[in-house]
């Protein structure tokens, strides 16, 4: 028996040798899994990276099965989704896995991004990991937006109508550009067909490629950890970090707990609450697209609502408030800020430009700019954050207060975006919009003041 097993082992080795001479299988396995060192103190927040990959796979797998029965045709699309829900065996399950999966993908990605912010994973040397991640976030938004048109429900139709009309505000080329994207004067069969092509081919390819780049960049610089310190500062005699453990099997096995726990939540929603009270599947989208009947409130799905709120908050009064804020910042910079004269002049030109621009553009045009800026802000984070420490465990109080304010504002914006606007709600959205941008604009300041705690030289870990 033992001899037999030994033979098997030997032949397996011979096979791997044959492969390795032609393809770097063992090398890649070792570099990226068996010998890729990760800190041993990964906590709850570190589940969301692997979960994001899980969701990408789930969405692609369920998406493939949906395309087998879905008809990208304005006359047939809505009925084909109902056909999947009723006549295709377990079609309802595949469809709910995909529709709930879209929302859960965003839940996971938002938490993954938040993890980056609180532990300083965006800081040097991981700036490119963060930037590629931000591009993934934008690509994911495009993917979700186009996917939402496909059921051809009334909210699909009007949501796409509203969002695409935003391109109208681009000077000179806006209306022509919108028409070019739609392929028609209104959202129509042409739009549905091209969105289908983008949703099932172009964007998934882009997403998979970006995720690959995200991982390549990560493995070049190594993973961060909840203490935000460099585990390569403490090496053992073999040159391996003392606080590091191989990604395979340790982290992989640990991530399985995260996967199981996440599946309980995800499948719990799929089986017991698939429309999630009208948040994951909107009521108005169970009626077919009707160009003659606008739904009472056109609201995008929840993962867009913080940005949608910022768009809607842009009224003349908000622009006026922004001018005043720009003016105050401008004066403060000349009087107090410790930057060179050159930088001061350059920033003054920018400030003057912003103030004049705010007077020229309409509320809607600036709303689109603000919405885009709200997303661009995330890209700048590695350079806005000046704190000497990375992890929230050792950050100063001003940072913690700012982060809590930002979180609250972000959630309120998200909530307001799901509701019809009233004057009071618009005012609240404007206040939250100012907090949102202040968080990024003031970050260089509040991350460089206050007392930080000393970072430990070894990661905080207690064996269980």
């Amino acid at each position, binding site marked *: 028996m033992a001899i037999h097993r030994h033979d098997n082992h030997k032949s397996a080795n011979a096979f791997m040798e044959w492969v390795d001479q032609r393809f770097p299988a063992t090398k890649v396995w070792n570099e990226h899994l068996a010998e890729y060192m990760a800190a041993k103190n990964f906590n709850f927040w570190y589940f969301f990276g692997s979960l994001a990959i899980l969701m990408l796979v789930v969405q692609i797998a369920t998406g493939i099965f949906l395309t087998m029965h879905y008809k990208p045709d304005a006359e047939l699309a809505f009925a084909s989704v109902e056909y999947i*829900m009723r006549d295709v065996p377990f079609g309802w399950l595949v469809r709910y896995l995909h529709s709930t999966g879209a929302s859960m993908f965003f839940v996971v990605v938002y938490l993954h991004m938040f993890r980056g912010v609180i532990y300083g994973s965006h800081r040097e040397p991981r700036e490119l990991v963060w930037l590629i991640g931000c591009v993934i976030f934008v690509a994911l938004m495009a993917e979700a937006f186009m996917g939402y048109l496909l059921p051809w429900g009334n909210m699909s139709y009007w949501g796409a109508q509203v969002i695409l009309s935003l391109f109208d505000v681009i000077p000179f080329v806006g209306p022509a550009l919108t028409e070019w994207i739609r392929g028609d004067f209104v959202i129509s069969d042409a739009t549905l067909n091209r969105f289908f092509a983008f949703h099932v081919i172009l964007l998934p390819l882009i997403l998979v490629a970006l995720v690959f780049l995200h991982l390549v960049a990560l493995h070049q610089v190594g993973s961060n950890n909840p203490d935000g310190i460099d585990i390569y500062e403490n090496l053992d005699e073999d040159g391996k970090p003392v606080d590091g453990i191989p990604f395979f099997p340790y982290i992989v*096995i640990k991530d399985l707990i995260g996967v199981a726990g996440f599946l309980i939540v995800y*499948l719990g929603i799929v*089986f*017991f609450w698939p429309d*999630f*009270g009208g948040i994951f599947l909107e009521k108005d989208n169970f009626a077919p697209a009707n160009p003659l009947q606008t739904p009472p409130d056109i609201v995008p799905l929840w993962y867009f609502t913080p940005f949608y709120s910022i768009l809607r908050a842009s009224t003349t009064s908000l622009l006026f408030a922004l001018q005043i804020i720009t003016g105050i910042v401008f004066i403060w910079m000349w009087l107090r800020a410790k930057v060179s004269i050159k930088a001061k002049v350059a920033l003054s030109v920018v400030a003057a430009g912003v103030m004049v621009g705010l007077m020229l553009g309409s509320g809607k045009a600036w709303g689109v700019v603000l919405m885009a800026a709200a997303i661009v802000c995330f890209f700048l984070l590695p350079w806005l954050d000046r704190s000497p420490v990375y992890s929230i465990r050792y950050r100063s109080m001003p940072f913690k207060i700012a982060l809590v304010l930002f979180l609250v504002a972000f959630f309120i914006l998200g909530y307001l975006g799901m509701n019809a606007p009233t004057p009071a709600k618009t005012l609240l959205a404007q206040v939250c919009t100012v907090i949102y941008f202040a968080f990024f604009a003031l970050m260089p300041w509040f991350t460089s003041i206050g007392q930080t705690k000393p970072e430990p030289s070894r990661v905080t870990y207690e064996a269980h």
Partner: protein
Amino acid sequence: MKKLSLLLVTLLSASVFASSAFAAGGHGAAVDEVHMNMSDKASLQNGAKIFVSYCLSCHSAEYSRYNRVAEDLEIPLWLLKENLMFTTEKEGDLMKTTMPAEDAKEWFGVTPPDLSLVARVRNPDWIYTYLRAFYLDESSPSGWNNSLFENVAMPHAMYELQGVQRVVGKVDEASQEVDSHGKPIAKEGQTIVGDTIFELQHSGKQSPAEFDKSMADLTAFLTYMGEPAQLKRKTIGVFTIAFLILLMLLCIVLKAEYWRDVH
């Protein structure tokens, strides 16, 4: 850090609660709560019978198939063919009305909407209230009106069951007597549907209580038809979640075993 996680959970649950309450509540019309039991096959069967007898003559359920309804509701095929299939001979057909859409538009002003998904677009409480809120109104083209959906084109399809009712007035919240659940109590000989008080002018085949039960059955059937999979979805879900909990426990044990040498 723990405080931050706590804040995140609080914010998340607060916004989900607030938004789902908003999404479910719709636009603030006063509706009555319907009591349905989706596992009560007799109730669903009765709803199906009322649907094909009273609704299907004008409305379609064009995504729903006769034999699927029979299978899900445990109706024998011969019974289905004899008592429920008036529009077609083939049991695998979709439940389409025989009324031509153009004629319907001419007669009612609008084509009667498809009802396959009505319970998902509206909500069960709304449907239950709407079905019981028709009243006589000589000024409207059809002679009928509805207190929940003013000036709706649809006439009262089920007056032979309910009878003919007239509006007495709106519920006045200040002076209205309410029961222990805060629901207004109707006076003798009157009924309250949504926020409107009605009086029965001619009684129908059913008493008000029987008619309410019939409409609850019909609402349950429409809710079933909105998503036929819901009858087995939750059963599969219980087994899936039970399996996942077991899987998670195994993963925890497995991780502890693998991590024994990490100090």
